[in-house]
């Protein structure tokens, strides 16, 4: 079913304006034309009626005398004269009080119906329209009165034909003039609509340009006089001077004395009396276009500021992002509902997630339920109390354990908590250093204890050994007593050695420093054990740095270190393996690094931290005292050095032929660092010594 729609709704504005004004002009033009024509016609008819009435009244006044005198000739002359002299008069006649026609102007008989057609009862004049063969006739009846006495009537008939012709001619002229006026009006309307539409189209084009991003549009008319020309102004520092896009009353800070303070529209009240404004202010469309230009200029200014602010924000955001991504700490931001709003790269990497998988989620989506529940309560506590949380946690990994320092702080926006910032710093290395420090302190305490005990035992033990040796001289060989004494002596000597080792560990034994060749001391030890080791197919390989200068050290005690390490390696290998010794002078020539690697089964992760403890041994009972590495540790420390063990041993510490011998996960390497010049190691780390130590410590953590 077709529905009728108001057809002007979808027309262009120009068409609407044109059609609307055309309709107004048409309607009002025709109505006005009709009104004027009608007024003219009525006026014409009224004149016609007045004329007829006047003629009738005059005739009535003049007919009184002859009517009284029954002067028919004079009456006849009168009606003939009236008929002849009155324009469009059809007839005239006089009747007396008895309604007898005394005189008439008809040539052939009198139309008898005419008398009764207009015969009023009262004494007032009366007009009656008659329709007859000649056409429409206005019949005017006027009483002949003397002192209020009616002595007869006169009747005058005036044809309406001429009036009708005049009326028709007037109507045609009126219609023609009206149509001409309408046509002229339509032309004016068309021109006006075209002008308005053109200016609106210009505004629309400018709006489209703005939509496209071009804010340099000028929608107002450009054929204008400028303010500095009107005011004959030379003030080049005035913001309006030379500005052709915006009128001066739209600009703040203009320098004319009569200009008010502030900007548009506050200053407009002072501008209304300014000759520039009075001359240049346009109509509403011009004002709209100029306001549009002001809007575009202001918009451009705002957009410029926004663009600058956006770039600044982007730069700051990028900077912040870079900082967050670069920092190894785990950083995240949650809102008050504990939904993640942001997470840095370290955070994502730790949990092996993308940022998009974290943002918008909660701990329950990322952690185990138990962990998430614990986090939830912690976080809620912080959000409620506003107190930051700082704690250290150990996280068990697949191979080792890692320590984190967790810091959760509430994020405030003014006085309201809007989120929660989490930073988690990996402090595993710090923890290891702490443990090493504790371990070192423990070793030192142990050494001091062991040294004290050994020192106290050493004297009675010497006496026991001395007296045992004296008693041996009293018994002959082969006797039971001598055999028992020999057993006592043997055990006493073992005890003495133990005491000597304890004193060595506690560094209470003698310490003699002298300049020595490090490589030579190692070679001497190798030569001592090389043969013995070879019997079990354990081969020693060495790589000495010839640039190592002589160092200040106790040569004998260092040889004890090498011996302990080689024996440890030999014991670990058992048979069929390699021991690789390498010396290296650090680049800054203030440290020397000695590595002793073996192809043994390696040291377990749990044991690695305890190998330098006194009396710790993985060997079978009776095979070792558990003091070898402790003594080694003490000697190196006395020399201002440092000893570490890595297991499994990194490949680079092994010669290429040993790599084939090394089983996966096997091997141990001891890294000894000794100062070359001073008594302590330089603060600068030596890459060769620390790279794998740190890496190993991290991986083990």
């Amino acid at each position: 079913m077709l529905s009728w729609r108001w057809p002007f709704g979808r027309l262009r504005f120009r068409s609407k304006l044109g059609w609307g004004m055309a309709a107004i002009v048409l309607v009002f033009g025709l109505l006005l034309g009709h009104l004027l024509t009608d007024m003219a016609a009525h006026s014409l008819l009224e004149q016609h009626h007045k004329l007829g009435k006047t003629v009738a009244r005059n005739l009535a006044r003049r007919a009184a005398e002859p009517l009284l005198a029954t002067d028919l000739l004079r009456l006849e002359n009168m009606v003939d004269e009236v008929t002849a002299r009155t324009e469009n008069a059809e007839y005239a006649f006089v009747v007396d009080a008895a309604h007898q026609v005394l005189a008439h102007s008809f040539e052939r008989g009198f139309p008898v119906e005419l008398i009764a057609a207009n015969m009023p009862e009262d004494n007032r004049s009366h007009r009656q329209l008659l329709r007859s063969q000649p056409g429409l006739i206005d019949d005017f009846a006027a009483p002949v009165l003397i002192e209020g006495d009616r002595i007869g009537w006169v009747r005058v008939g005036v044809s309406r034909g001429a009036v009708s012709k005049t009326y028709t001619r007037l109507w045609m002229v009126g219609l023609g003039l009206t149509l001409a006026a309408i046509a002229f009006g339509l032309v004016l309307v068309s021109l006006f609509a075209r002008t308005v539409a053109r200016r609106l189209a210009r505004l629309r084009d400018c709006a489209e340009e703005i939509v496209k991003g071009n804010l340099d549009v000028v929608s107002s008319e450009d054929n204008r006089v400028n303010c500095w020309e009107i005011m004959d102004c030379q003030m080049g520092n005035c913001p309006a001077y030379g500005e052709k896009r915006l009128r001066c009353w739209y600009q703040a800070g203009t320098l004319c004395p009569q200009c008010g303070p502030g900007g548009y529209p506050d200053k407009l009240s002072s501008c209304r009396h300014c000759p520039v404004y009075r001359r240049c202010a346009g109509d509403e469309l011009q004002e709209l276009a100029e306001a549009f230009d002001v809007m575009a200029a202001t918009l451009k200014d705002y957009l410029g500021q926004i663009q600058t602010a956006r770039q600044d924000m982007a730069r700051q955001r990028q900077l912040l992002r870079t900082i967050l991504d670069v920092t190894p700490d785990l950083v995240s931001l949650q809102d008050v509902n504990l939904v993640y709003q942001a997470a840095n790269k370290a955070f994502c990497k730790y949990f092996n997630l993308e940022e998009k998988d974290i943002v918008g989620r909660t701990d329950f989506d990322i952690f185990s339920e138990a962990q998430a529940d614990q986090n939830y309560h912690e976080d809620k506590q912080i959000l409620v109390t506003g107190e930051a949380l700082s704690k250290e946690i150990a996280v068990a990994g697949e191979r080792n354990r890692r320590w984190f320092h967790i810091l959760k702080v509430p994020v405030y926006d003014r006085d309201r908590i809007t989120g929660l910032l989490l930073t988690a710093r990996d402090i595993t290395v710090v923890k290891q250093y702490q443990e090493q420090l504790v371990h070192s302190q423990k070793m030192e305490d142990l050494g001091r204890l062991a040294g004290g005990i050994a020192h106290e035992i050493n004297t009675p033990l010497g006496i026991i050994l001395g007296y045992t040796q004296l008693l041996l001289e009293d018994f002959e060989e082969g006797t039971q007593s001598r055999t028992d004494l020999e057993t006592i002596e043997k055990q006493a000597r073992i005890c003495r050695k133990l005491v000597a080792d304890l004193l060595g560990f506690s560094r209470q034994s003698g310490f003699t420093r002298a300049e020595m060749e490090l490589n030579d001391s190692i070679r001497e030890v190798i030569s001592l054990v090389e043969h013995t080791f070879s019997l079990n197919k354990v081969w020693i390989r060495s790589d000495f740095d010839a640039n190592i200068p002589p160092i200040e050290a106790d040569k004998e005690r260092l040889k004890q270190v090498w011996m302990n390490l080689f024996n440890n390696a030999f014991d670990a290998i058992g048979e069929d393996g390699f021991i690789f010794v390498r010396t290296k002078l650090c680049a800054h020539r203030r440290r020397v690094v000695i590595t002793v690697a073996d192809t043994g089964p390696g040291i377990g992760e749990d044991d690695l931290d305890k190998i330098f403890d006194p009396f710790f041994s993985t060997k079978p009972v009776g095979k070792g005292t558990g003091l070898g590495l402790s003594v080694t540790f003490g000697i190196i420390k006395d020399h201002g050095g440092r000893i570490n063990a890595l297991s499994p041993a990194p490949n680079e510490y092994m010669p290429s032929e040993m790599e084939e011998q090394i089983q996966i996960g096997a091997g141990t390497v001891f890294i000894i660092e000794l100062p070359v010049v001073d008594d302590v190691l330089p603060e600068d780390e030596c890459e060769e010594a620390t790279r794998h130590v740190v890496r190993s410590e991290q991986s083990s953590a």
Partner: protein
Amino acid sequence: MRTFRNAMSIMTFILVLCLGAFAGCDTEDSPVHVDWDKREELRLEPQREALTYAYLPQYSHTVSYQRHNKLVEYLRRTTGLPIRQVYPDTFDEHIHMAAQGKIDISFSNPMVYAMIAEQFGARAFARIVEPNGRAQFRGQIICRRDNKAITSLADCRGKSWIAVDPYSAGGYLFDLGVFLEHGLTREDFSEIAFAPGPGGKQEKVALAVFAGRYDIGSIREGTLDIVKDTIDVDQLRILAHTPWYPGWVYAARKGLPDKTIAKIRQALLDLDLAHPRDQEILDRAGFKAIIPSSDADYEPVRALMRTIGVEGDA
């Protein structure tokens, strides 16, 4: 395109509506049809027999009607006689109608009465009392107030004179008698004109002098009161009055039955100014009262006529 067609349709509709309104708003009352072809030759019905009453037309017919219509009605009503007023156009016609017996009751000035009595046997039976309370009346000779050349009757010599009618008593004959007494004959005036007829002749004299057309004029006393609403009578100056003569007279034609005359005479004499009904009749007629009269009352008039050489043969 459809929108444009709809818009055009609406505009066309508006145009047609407006043109219709333009064309269709001729307001007119409904005409009465008259058949122009139904014609007849008209003939006046003869008037009923009645006594005719005529007022010597010193004024217009309309004034005559105004003055005497009520009186005629009164006579008809009181006497029961069929009386109607007739309107001779001039003094002369009045006299001629009297001569022909077409005027049964004549109300005329004493000069005309003297003529018709002398020549046609009319008989006076009543005369009026003027509004000034006198049973006589007189004429006035007037000129413009600013006419310095005329200060006395002697100054009228060689001047132009307009009079009412050759048969007017107060408007000519009385005045002519005065001029003769002062030695001025008709020939001493540069012109003697008479007011054009019909009717309204007294007023016309006053108007002619006021307009300056004539140097002097002669009217009966009382005329200036009649024309005071028409002209500024202060611009006129009364140069002289004529002697008093018997006033206007009612006369019956010769042969009218005495009984009829007696009825009419009594009715006229019965008019009493004190009576409200009669007062209106008398006021309109310009009388104070009507008193009995006889032919002998008009001897002074006849004497004047002989003096000025007017005989009853006019």
